């Protein structure tokens, strides 16, 4: 069980209010991802849930019981830190077994649980090594192992993959996803990488300056962003925003078109522009188009390879049913 509820939670450091009153419920078994730009309070929120940071006001409930005053160790939550926070003087075996040892569990049972965790994380060959002798991905897995053995009510991850290289990150992303499928335990995952958020989450919580901008499933956020901020934050490459007369035609202050929802043609279309940079990824081509007269730069994404280069003239046509409309306050129309 791991239903986590934040009620009217606030946090101030001195005079600075980092988290204005905030309500949020994370259901049992959910994979919730907190995303937002750097400094928006994601880590602070996570640390408050873990009990490492006091609340300035409000309540946290875990499984219906008020946990605000409960010490961190007794909340039944396990955390995986960005820097892994492994104990450098202990072997992998001791690291993973540490929470059990602190819980005064009998040694045979500790050994058995550590082995089970190590097997599921492919760490069997490294059990007697020190963290310093492991690769980044292996360290990450040890940190996850240390969290798993406690059989927590929920896992908290604070940007666990940001120190890994791109290829490893994809691999670990899948592993954590599989872990969630297997354990069906609540997970709260902090990241500022929106790809991680889109691929892993059941529920994405988009934060800006401590305020929740939108909560919802990844595809809901993608298709129906509540405001310009969410629209710009979710999706890669970023959504293009067009203001002025072009937007007024659609009865909005701003319209947003995702790069993948724009048709490119060499001969005709709504907007004529000049190619700045064309990024050929093989599977896709990202074209950055200038001088369209509607925005500084419009990014489009074309499936497959298309023969355009710097300086070419192209015509862009947004797909009419994929245009997001926002009012002057940036709210969805």
């Amino acid at each position, binding site marked *: 069980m791991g239903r986590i509820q934040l009620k009217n939670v606030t946090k101030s450091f001195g005079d600075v209010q980092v988290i204005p009153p905030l309500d949020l419920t994370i259901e049992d078994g959910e994979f919730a991802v907190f995303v937002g730009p750097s400094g928006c309070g994601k880590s602070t929120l996570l640390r408050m849930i873990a009990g*490492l940071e006091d609340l300035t006001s409000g309540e946290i409930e875990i499984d219906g019981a008020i946990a605000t005053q409960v010490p961190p*160790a007794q909340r039944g939550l396990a*955390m995986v830190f960005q*820097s892994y926070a492994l104990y450098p*003087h202990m072997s992998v075996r001791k690291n993973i077994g*540490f929470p059990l040892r*602190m819980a005064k569990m009998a040694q045979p049972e500790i050994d058995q649980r550590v082995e089970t965790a190590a097997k599921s994380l492919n760490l069997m060959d490294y059990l007697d090594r020190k963290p310093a002798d492991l690769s980044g991905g292996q360290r990450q897995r040890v940190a996850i192992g240390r969290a798993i053995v406690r059989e927590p009510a929920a896992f908290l991850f604070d940007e666990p993959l940001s120190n890994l290289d791109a290829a490893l990150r994809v691999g670990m992303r899948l592993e954590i996803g599989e872990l969630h499928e297997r354990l069906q335990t609540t997970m709260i995952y902090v990241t500022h990488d929106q790809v991680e958020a889109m691929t892993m989450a059941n529920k994405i919580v988009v934060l800006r300056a401590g305020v929740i901008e939108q909560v919802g499933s990844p595809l809901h956020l993608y298709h129906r962003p509540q405001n310009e901020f969410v629209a710009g934050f979710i999706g890669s490459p970023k959504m293009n925003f067009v203001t002025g007369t072009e937007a007024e035609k659609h009865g909005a202050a701003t319209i947003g078109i995702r790069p993948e929802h724009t048709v490119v043609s060499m001969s005709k279309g709504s907007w004529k522009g000049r190619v700045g940079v064309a990024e050929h990824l093989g599977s896709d081509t990202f074209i950055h188009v200038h001088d369209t007269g509607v925005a500084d730069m419009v990014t489009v994404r074309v499936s497959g390879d298309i023969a355009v280069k710097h300086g070419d003239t192209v015509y862009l046509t947004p797909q009419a049913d994929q245009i997001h409309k926002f009012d002057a306050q940036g709210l969805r129309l």
Partner: protein
Amino acid sequence: MSARKLPRLLQTPAVLLLLVWMLIPLGMTLYFSFIRYVLNNLRRPEWTSPSLSNWRGFGNYEFVLNSKDFLFAIQNSLFIVCSILFLTVILGILIAVLINKTFPGQGIVRVLLISPFFVMPAVNAVLWINMILDPVLGLQGIAVGSINELLDSLRNAPLLGWFFSLWPDLAPISFRATQTSAYAVIIMVTWQWTPFAVLIFMTSLQSEDQQQKEAAILDGASTWSQFRFLTLPHLARPIAIVVMIQAIFHLSLYAEIEIVSRGNGNKNLPYLIGEFANNNIGAASATGIFAVILANIVAIFLLRMIGKTLME
């Protein structure tokens, strides 16, 4: 000239200087330890100047080994050094952990804590033996005296007086006595060198990873467990450094021993060398060679220990 040769060539003067610096005194000590060489001898004036014709072989060594103070001096050297090491490391860790937390007046407290380290050893010894440890005029004497006075007046109190009359008067300890002079040296050197340990441990504590602590808190580790399983292993290397450096310094204690009791009941090898050197340079040199051997044994022992903590 190859790329390797130039750096070597540039290092040579420094290396040579160091070698000369160490080898000449060591060589002379060795030479003196094998000849008869005394400063004053009316019957055998030829012994008063060093010369190979006064060759004595291992005679000086035999003489030193058979002298009544030699084994005692070695034992006492080790006793003093080990006691000081033990006390400074324990106190150093305690104080460093305490003042590592933020509290008002932290800066001043830290400066005050470090200050004993800047007192000269001889001054330190004079202050301690006369002003603090003296059984009559020192703080100790005053404290013991006033406790006894208090006891006296309590004995005359109605009702409870009989209870206090069961208590004996306290007797002040004379730290210049044969049995206690080593303790006086241990106390004063510990006081002077604890700041050194605190300083080293404090810098190390400040580099401790806070996220590891937080992870341990979430893992259910008590304050003691955090100290035992995270802080103490983190301090292993600085402890080894403190032990190593202090051992080197304290094997050659001299001023404190001289000032406390003039070696009465409390000698170490350097003090013994000093005593021999009043006249018998040959014996003093032989003792010096023994001191070099002892220092090397201690150093090898300590290096092993440090090696082990690093391997861990």
